[in-house]
């Protein structure tokens, strides 16, 4: 059964799964970022591979399709020399009525060493990790690649890596997170990471329909006016607005969203002159971000993608060796 304890840390406090950034000690986060740095250079070599996870079987379990995230995990695992098996479960087992945990038991019987899990339900990765513990398989590791609205910890870590790369010290930063925070696991993970590392000023900006209740409780300030919310900040993180939410009871239209919350050069001018612009991708140009800004010199959106592979290599190699 799911316990009160977070199953990602073992009895000695060692990281055995990565399920959420909430509650991870700052030293653990910093150690992941530090470990990612040397992995970053491997992509520039003749042989883009190290033998750390040779012979390990990594199962990419994607109950929601996401080519982007699945590919970066696949590259990361392959650069660690692991064998990668991609399963798009959305199209196989569950449609035949097999339960999530039955799927897991079957793959464990195939000697899986690690699951990279993307699921539409918040807490799915926790459920799997608790189940592995309860069934005596603590040597099988779980990486949460996005669970519902709850968390996307490797994205949060790569965002932190990117911010640290350009801005160094979290304890002097103002970070603005803009858009659909309500449905965003990216925002939740980043907020936990930033507050854990001592970022004094984290702001969320959006209409009341897209901000979750009592989000202040996560240690952020709330703004509805983007020009005011973005003023003087060092980092602007734009969130993706899902197509199905652009028109309906949450928002009247994507055009009106862009008018109020789309990042334009004009709005960006309110931030610090050296502010960086981030986006987890895939971008909706002209909805949450204007093309000249997305492609502009302050955009670090493509470096985020590159760093993402190194961060995922660090996470996988750290927990697989735990």
């Amino acid at each position, binding site marked *: 059964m799911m316990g009160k304890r977070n199953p990602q840390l073992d009895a000695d406090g060692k990281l055995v799964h990565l399920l959420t950034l909430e509650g991870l000690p700052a030293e653990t986060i910093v150690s992941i970022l530090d470990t990612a740095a040397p992995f970053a250079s491997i992509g520039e070599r*003749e042989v883009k591979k190290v033998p750390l996870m040779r012979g390990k079987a990594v199962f990419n379990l994607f109950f929601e399709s996401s080519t982007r995230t699945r590919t970066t995990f696949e590259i990361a695992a392959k650069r660690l020399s692991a064998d990668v098996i991609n399963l798009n479960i959305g199209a196989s087992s569950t449609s035949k009525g097999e339960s999530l945990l039955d799927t897991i038991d079957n793959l464990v019987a195939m000697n899986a060493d690690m699951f990279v899990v993307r699921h539409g339900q918040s807490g799915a990765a926790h459920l799997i990790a608790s189940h592995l513990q309860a069934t005596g398989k603590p040597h099988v590791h779980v990486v949460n690649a996005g669970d519902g609205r709850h968390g996307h910890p490797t994205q949060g870590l790569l965002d932190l890596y990117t911010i640290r790369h350009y801005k160094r010290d979290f304890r002097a930063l103002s970070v603005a997170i803009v858009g659909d925070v309500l449905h965003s696991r990216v925002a939740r993970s980043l907020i936990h990471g930033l507050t854990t590392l001592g970022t004094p000023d984290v702001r969320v900006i959006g209409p009341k329909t897209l901000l979750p209740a009592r989000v202040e409780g996560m240690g952020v300030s709330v703004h509805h006016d983007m020009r005011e919310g973005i003023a003087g900040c060092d980092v602007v993180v734009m969130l993706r607005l899902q197509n199905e939410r652009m028109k309906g009871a949450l928002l009247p239209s994507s055009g009106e969203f862009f008018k109020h919350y789309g990042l334009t050069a004009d709005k960006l001018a309110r931030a610090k002159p050296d502010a960086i612009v981030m986006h987890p991708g895939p971008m909706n140009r002209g909805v949450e971000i204007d093309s000249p800004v997305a492609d502009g010199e302050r955009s670090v959106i493509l470096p985020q993608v590159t760093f993402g592979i190194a961060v995922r290599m660090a996470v996988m190699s750290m927990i697989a060796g735990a």
Partner: protein
Amino acid sequence: MAAEAPGIALPDAEEALEALAARMRAGVAHGAAFVGIYSGGAWIAERLATLVPGDHAVGYIDVSFYRDDYASKGLKAGARRSDLPFDVAGATIVLIDDVLYTGRSTRAAINELFDYGRPAAIELAVLVDRGGRELPIEPGYVGARVACARDLSIVLSRGEDGRLSLGVERAGEP
């Protein structure tokens, strides 16, 4: 600073370095690149580049991602970025380490070098050879040879003035 262990005669690190440099002067190619294994080997590589005549590019290598004890010990925190500021393909490389023992770090370093390209030749230079090899690896250049009990580690340190010194720790200590 590591304590002197009774019963082990450790050489003076600076004298061993001078002896190593003298042997290398006689054999190392003029354009050979020096690659030090972090962290002790990196300090020695920097010093040797000034002590051994020739045009020696200096690189650094961290073998954390190539170690064969990952499955049992996991990934150590504090891995550093390998930095080889020359084209490995076709290069003559002298791999440099502080203490040669089982040969496993050397094996890991050679594997890593090959992932950067195919070198023309790799030689091995070590400050101290303590014997106890578990792999068929022999250094071409040795500063000093020492006999040492299995449960002890020989550790190289660098003082604030840049001077190197050798000490002994119980194996397993940080």
